[in-house]
């Protein structure tokens, strides 16, 4: 599943790569209210497309995707960024790991690609990683990665409870999963430069990111836990 917002530039490459390395998987592009030709580009590649009428953010796009997965009876969903920073060749390893865990994060730490963050953003990522690691009971080094797989139980949970708030798609979704009794694990993946688009790196933005991340984490920790619905209770 690829949540995509204004990714007409990078999408063709990513889709071609997925087709090449993973010929047998179903591909879903969730077009999150893009203002460019993302939807048309995806359709030209003959993949399933969900067109959201307006921009909901990654969280909203993901929930729509999980609901689609349930409707189509997919057991396993792997989220891949549409900007080309994730290598589809890592997907089989994530899926393999899903045999033992409900959520598997593709962590960008021991990879061949250069992935470098500094300053407040780095601290934020470290704080969140250590907090969530303690919650999960396993060592997680990269909790903000958008490259992750969800097993059957996680798909059912996320189709109903996937947070749409800022950073909810990465951090809060993990907290929800852990508190609902799902297991979280990680595999190391390599990270590449984005095919198009630039990451935000200004210090002010990074500081705001840190504050919002802590807020999101703090609030999600105080929430009541949500039980995982049984198979029958999910209404699509």
């Amino acid at each position: 599943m690829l949540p995509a917002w204004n990714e007409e530039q990078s999408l063709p490459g990513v889709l071609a790569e997925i087709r090449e390395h993973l010929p047998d998987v179903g591909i879903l592009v969730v077009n999150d209210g893009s203002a460019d030709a993302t939807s048309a580009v995806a359709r030209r590649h003959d993949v399933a497309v969900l067109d959201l009428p307006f921009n909901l953010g990654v969280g909203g796009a993901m929930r729509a995707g999980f609901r689609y997965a349930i409707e189509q009876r997919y057991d396993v969903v792997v989220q891949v960024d549409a900007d080309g920073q994730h290598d589809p060749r890592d997907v089989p390893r994530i899926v393999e790991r899903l045999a033992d865990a409900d959520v598997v994060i593709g962590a960008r730490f021991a990879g061949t690609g250069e992935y470098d963050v500094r300053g407040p953003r780095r601290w934020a990522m470290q704080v969140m990683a250590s907090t969530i690691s303690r919650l999960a009971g396993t060592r997680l080094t990269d909790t903000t990665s958008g490259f992750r797989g969800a097993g059957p139980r996680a798909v059912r949970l996320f189709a109903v409870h996937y947070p749409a708030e800022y950073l909810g798609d990465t951090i809060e979704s993990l907290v929800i999963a852990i508190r609902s009794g799902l297991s979280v694990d990680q595999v190391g993946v390599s990270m590449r430069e984005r095919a198009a688009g630039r990451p935000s790196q200004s210090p002010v933005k990074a500081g705001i990111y840190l504050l919002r991340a802590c807020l999101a984490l703090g609030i999600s920790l105080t929430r009541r836990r949500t039980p995982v619905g049984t198979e029958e209770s999910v209404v699509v």
Partner: protein
Amino acid sequence: MSSGYVFALVGAFVTLFFMVELLRRRRLREKYAALWIVVSVVVLLFAIFPALTTGLAELVGVTIPVNLVFFLGLLVLLIVCVQLSAEVSGLEQENQTLAEESALLRNRIERLEHHLGQQSGAPPVADPGPGGATG
């Protein structure tokens, strides 16, 4: 009768009339209007009986009655704001669900059409987003 007294009285009456009128024309849902009607009635009471504020201020230990009025006014506004924020959050949630539902349904229709052999391609959509409609 001081002019200030008249001013307060007129102001309170106008507010009350306005609320009832909005409610009558269904511009305002009851659950929001009820609060405002209560507020305007209280204001009206204070306007008619200024002694009420003085008494109330003495009762709760506020030296200057007008401060009590300001405080209560701020409190009411705060509560209303928070309530509206909560309502908006609820609406956003519903909005998101509707958007997802619409995307899923559109996808389903496309698959059905595909199944029926109607190669419609991307459907012409009248989205506000220019990109969404270019398919």
